[in-house]
Structure formats: structure tokens, C-alpha cells
């Protein structure tokens, strides 16, 4: 993007002044190189979000922002129901509550290396991934509704997880206000045999090594030690969330018009929070959040089973589980006044700072772990929420590296087979049913995750705690 289109507030804060029909400014957090490389569509989409009714303070974009649907991916916006605020199915996205969890193994890299190959093979056999894969769980209608209401707590009660995990999951593992009756039969049918499946695209399960520690004090609280091994899982609400997103998008195009909301892009389809459709969507979306929380808990359980086979007595402890595509009711101080806002995060991570009441006791003094997935070759980061983040962007941070190149362009540039071989040379084992899928997710197709997290830290959104490098990557 052309830097001349922005007011440069500081090295990582770029502002677009409001002009009709924008109701608030746009603020993008990124360094000069990241913003220059961003697609013009990010500008356009962030400006469009700024026109929506009831938006509070600003339409934000995170350092990893890229061209999305309606909202930019990496977009954050809060709406006040008492000022005509809206909820947007497009603003949450199709993969509702897609997110990341990281589990500590207590093992060292030296423990993994002798079994790296059989461990990779076993994980790729035991974790259902990719198109056509089937989970071992089938839900009848009663269990479906119990899952949609109970989330990770439901999974734990069925023996697919551990009770101590729950305090390390957003919403303590159960999203309140879920209304399974607002989820269509088609969405439920799509999920009937999908629990405990990873999906495809950018979803993965990785075995990673702690490669670098930036903040030893916080790393100690998180339980991260140099050369320790962790398991990180990235996936979401599977077919159920996709179907809910699809159906409400269609419905909200009509209801937005009926409510007199002018949509600059149909993908921004939305409904007033205080409307029948808005409330029904919130009930369905919260059910989809529970689906994602349950799904990641089950995948964590499967990982535990595989690790127990290779390392008897190995105890996988959940560090944290974050969601990226959500709309959540949160209490934030705006201009000195506390307000209940509906915060949309589309491809952005909640990043509560120290002292936040929702954090478990052990983490409260330091802040929330913010898990940033990179690409399979370059690694990932663990950040911690910063106290300054609330005033910056309603306690939000980036969610990944963000794509720098389309799948189309990646396919032209790389061969999947060669990427698998090259990464194997570097000690990174890839397991995927599709070499083309690997090429589309090539490390070079992503932005420099190091630059993204450095910009997030400089902007005061979240601070770096540790860098992780991949050892094994299972992709759908």
C-alpha cells in the first residue's frame, strides 16, 4: 500500500482519518515494510468496516493483516449494542473460533530425535486430517446439542481430555450463551462425524522445539524452557462453523437491508445486535465456538495417546488455547468509561494483559499467552498480552504470519515434493496426504513472522516470550 495514504502516528501505528461515510478512523499496526507489502484491499476493507453502525473508537488491523472477506483478515472492531451496534457473520468468518493450542510435553529435543520419524508417522495415522478423513466419533442429535452447549467441558466429561485443561482455555472451555437450537440441521449434519478431525488448508499439528527465549521471567511462568518440546494444534469448528457462516451470511444480506444498513460490500452482511437475527446468530456462533473448543480438546487427547505410546509416563500439560475468529462480549474502558462491547476478531487473537480476571491464577500476574502460528519452515512464536493492549486495540494481537502470496502463485513457484525434501534436510518432517497442499502452504508464501511479532511488540499489542521451531508438521 502507498504510505502516503496514511497519517504516520509512530513507527508501527498508521491511521486513516475518518471521512464520510466512515464513522471512526482506521488504525493499522505494522512497520513500514509490512504496511507497504499489504494489499490495497486491506485499506479498502478496513475503511468499509469503519462505516458500520455502532463501531467504537476505530477499525483496527493487526500487523499480519491481509485481504479477507468483508473484514480484512487481522481485523478487529468493537460494537456497542446501545448505539445501534451490529454483529457480522462476515466479520467472524467461516471457520468460527479457528484457533491454536500449545501443550507442554516436558521432553527435550534430544528425547524426540531418536523417534522423530516413527512419531511423525504415528501422528499422521492417528490424527484424522485432510479431505475424506473420518473421525472415530459420531454424534447423535442429543450428543450434538450437548457438545454445542458444553464445548471442551463436554469433551472432558466424555473422557477426551483432562479437567485441568479447562482453566487454560478461553471461557474456561465453555462458551456461555450457546444456543444449539439456532444451529441448522445442515450444519449439524456436516459435523456429525467430524469431531476430532484436523481439517486441511492452513490447519496443522506441529511438534516444536523452544528455540529462543525473549522473556525468561514470563517463560518460566509459562513453563517454557530452551530446547523443550511442545505440541501445537491449529484448527477450528470444522464443517459446522463453515455452514453457520454460510447460512447467516445469506440471511444477513437481507436483514441488513431491512435494518437500513448500507453495506459497502455484501460480505459485511450484518444485523443489529439487538435484533432477532443478531441474537440468533450469536447463539449459533457461540455453539460453533464450543464445537471448536471441543474439537481442539479431542485432538489434544489424541496427541496425548500417541505421546504416551512413545514416552510412557509423559504428561502433556496445556499451556493455553486461543481462538481467532470470534465475536465476544467484553468489558473495555473507552475514554474513561467502562462499556460492554461486542468485539469482532477476524484472524486476530485476544491478548489480555496482566491482572485480567478471566486468566487462571497461575497466569494472572504475567498476562495471557498469545500463540502465533508461523509457517511450517520458519516456526512460531509465543507472546504475552500487554497491559497497554486494551487501549491499543481492545486487547488484541496478530494471529499468524499472514499470507504474502496467493495459493495460486505459490503453486507456480514451488513443488511440494521439493519442499518436503528440503525441510527434511533441515530436520523438519512433513506429513500430508497432498504434496500440492504442501506447495500451497510453502514457507515462502507467508510473511516474515519475525517481523510481524516484532511489530506487534513495538506497537504495544503483545510482547515476545519465546520462538518455536518445527520438528514435525502434520497437515491436512
Amino acid at each position, binding site marked *: 500500500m502507498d504510505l502516503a495514504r496514511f497519517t504516520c502516528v509512530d513507527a508501527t501505528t498508521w491511521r486513516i482519518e475518518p471521512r464520510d461515510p466512515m464513522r471512526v478512523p482506521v488504525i493499522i499496526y505494522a512497520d513500514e515494510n509490512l504496511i507497504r507489502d499489504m494489499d490495497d484491499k486491506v485499506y479498502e476493507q478496513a475503511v468499509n468496516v469503519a462505516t458500520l453502525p455502532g463501531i467504537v473508537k476505530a477499525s483496527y488491523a493487526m500487523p499480519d493483516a491481509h485481504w479477507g472477506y468483508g473484514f480484512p483478515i487481522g481485523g478487529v472492531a468493537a460494537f456497542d449494542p446501545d448505539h445501534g451496534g451490529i454483529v457480522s457473520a462476515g466479520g467472524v468468518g467461516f471457520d468460527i473460533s479457528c484457533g491454536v493450542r500449545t501443550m507442554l510435553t516436558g521432553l527435550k529435543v534430544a528425547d524426540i530425535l531418536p523417534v522423530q520419524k516413527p512419531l511423525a508417522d504415528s501422528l499422521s495415522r492417528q490424527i484424522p486430517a*485432510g479431505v475424506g478423513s473420518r473421525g472415530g466419533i459420531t454424534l447423535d442429535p442429543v450428543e450434538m446439542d450437548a457438545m454445542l452447549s458444553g464445548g471442551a467441558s463436554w469433551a472432558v466429561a466424555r473422557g477426551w481430555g483432562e479437567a485441568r485443561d479447562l482453566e487454560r482455555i478461553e471461557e474456561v472451555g465453555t462458551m456461555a450463551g450457546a444456543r444449539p437450537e439456532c444451529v441448522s440441521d445442515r450444519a449439524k449434519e456436516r459435523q456429525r462425524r467430524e469431531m476430532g478431525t484436523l481439517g486441511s488448508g492452513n490447519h496443522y499439528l506441529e511438534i516444536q522445539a523452544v528455540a529462543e527465549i525473549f522473556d525468561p521471567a514470563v517463560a518460566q511462568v509459562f513453563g517454557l524452557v530452551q530446547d523443550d518440546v511442545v505440541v501445537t494444534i491449529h484448527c477450528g469448528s470444522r464443517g459446522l462453523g463453515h455452514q453457520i457462516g454460510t447460512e447467516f451470511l445469506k440471511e444477513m444480506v437481507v436483514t441488513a437491508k431491512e435494518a437500513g444498513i448500507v453495506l459497502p460490500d*455484501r460480505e459485511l452482511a450484518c444485523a443489529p445486535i439487538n435484533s432477532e437475527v443478531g441474537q440468533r446468530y450469536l447463539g449459533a456462533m457461540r455453539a460453533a465456538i464450543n464445537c471448536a473448543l471441543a474439537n481442539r480438546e479431542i485432538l489434544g487427547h489424541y496427541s496425548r495417546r500417541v505421546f504416551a505410546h512413545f514416552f510412557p509416563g509423559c504428561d502433556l500439560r496445556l499451556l493455553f488455547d486461543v481462538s481467532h475468529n470470534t465475536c465476544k462480549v467484553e468489558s473495555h474502558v473507552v475514554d474513561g468509561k467502562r462499556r460492554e462491547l461486542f468485539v469482532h476478531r477476524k484472524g486476530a487473537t485476544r491478548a489480555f494483559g496482566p491482572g485480567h480476571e478471566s486468566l487462571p491464577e497461575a497466569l494472572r500476574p504475567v498476562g495471557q499467552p498469545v500463540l502465533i502460528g508461523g509457517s511450517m519452515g520458519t516456526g512460531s512464536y509465543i507472546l504475552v498480552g500487554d497491559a497497554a493492549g486494551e487501549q491499543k486495540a481492545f486487547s488484541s494481537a496478530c494471529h499468524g504470519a499472514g499470507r504474502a502470496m496467493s495459493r495460486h502463485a505459490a503453486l507456480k513457484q514451488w513443488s511440494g515434493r521439493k519442499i518436503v525434501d528440503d525441510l527434511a534436510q533441515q530436520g523438519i518432517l512433513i506429513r500430508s496426504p497432498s504434496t500440492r497442499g504442501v506447495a500451497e502452504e510453502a514457507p515462502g508464501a507467508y510473511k516474515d513472522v519475525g517481523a510481524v511479532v516484532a511489530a506487534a511488540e513495538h506497537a504495544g499489542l503483545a510482547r515476545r516470550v519465546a520462538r518455536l521451531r518445527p520438528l514435525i508438521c502434520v497437515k491436512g
Partner: protein
Amino acid sequence: MNHSAAPKAGWEHFPHDADVGVRGWGSTAGEAFEQAARALKEVVTHAEVRTQAAVEVKCDAPDIEILFVEWLNAIIYEMAVRKMLFGRFAVRIDGTRLTGTLWGEQVDVARHAPACEPKGATYTALRVAKESDGRWSAACIVDV
């Protein structure tokens, strides 16, 4: 990628930062829809899909562009719940209603090596129109 089946009908993919665009064209809107469905199939696999079973779908929408998204979403739904891939399509459009037939087979991971699973068709870059050369085209971004 650009695979023209005949001068008058064909399909292509076009780029999006995170996902992929599908476009079909033909002498009628229905034919453009059928070609775009082939582009959707190619997002998932380049392998041949055998036409062993037929599935019927019905869609309706407030306008023809949203009807196109509904058509692709109907295919995505049938792929997901039946664990099938589809390689041949027939579409009949009557105003803003559509009846379609999908021919395909069960996913065979070894043979099809599916690259990714479409999550949903979107309203981004959505366009269904009769072009100046008389051909119909139908396009949108698919979230994968």
C-alpha cells in the same frame, strides 16, 4: 490456470491473498455455473473423478449472484457430508431457482491426493454477468 473445454465454455482459477477464486464461463448462465463447479473440483484435486453416483441439489436465492454462491455451497455441503468428490455437473436455472446434478465418487485419498477442503463460497469478487462477447461468466472467491 486456464482450461478451456471449448472456445465458448471453460473455467479458471484466479488469485486471492489467502484463498482462491473460481470462474466459469459458457453460452448460458447454467453452463457458466457448471464450469465454475469444475474449477471448484480442481481446487481440491487435479486427479480424475469417476462419475459413479449422482446427487441432486436444489437452491434458491434473492438474485442470480447469490444463487451462484448457493450452488457452490451446495456442492461443498454434499462433498463434506458424503465424503465424495464430483467431476461432472448439470445445472438448470429457472429465475432465481436452480436444480443441479452432481456426478462423482467417494474420496480416495491415495488416488485423489486432495489438496484442500473448501469451507464455503464467498461474496468476495462475486460476479455473474453476460459479457460483451455474449458469453456468461460466474466467479467468486472460495474460502479454503
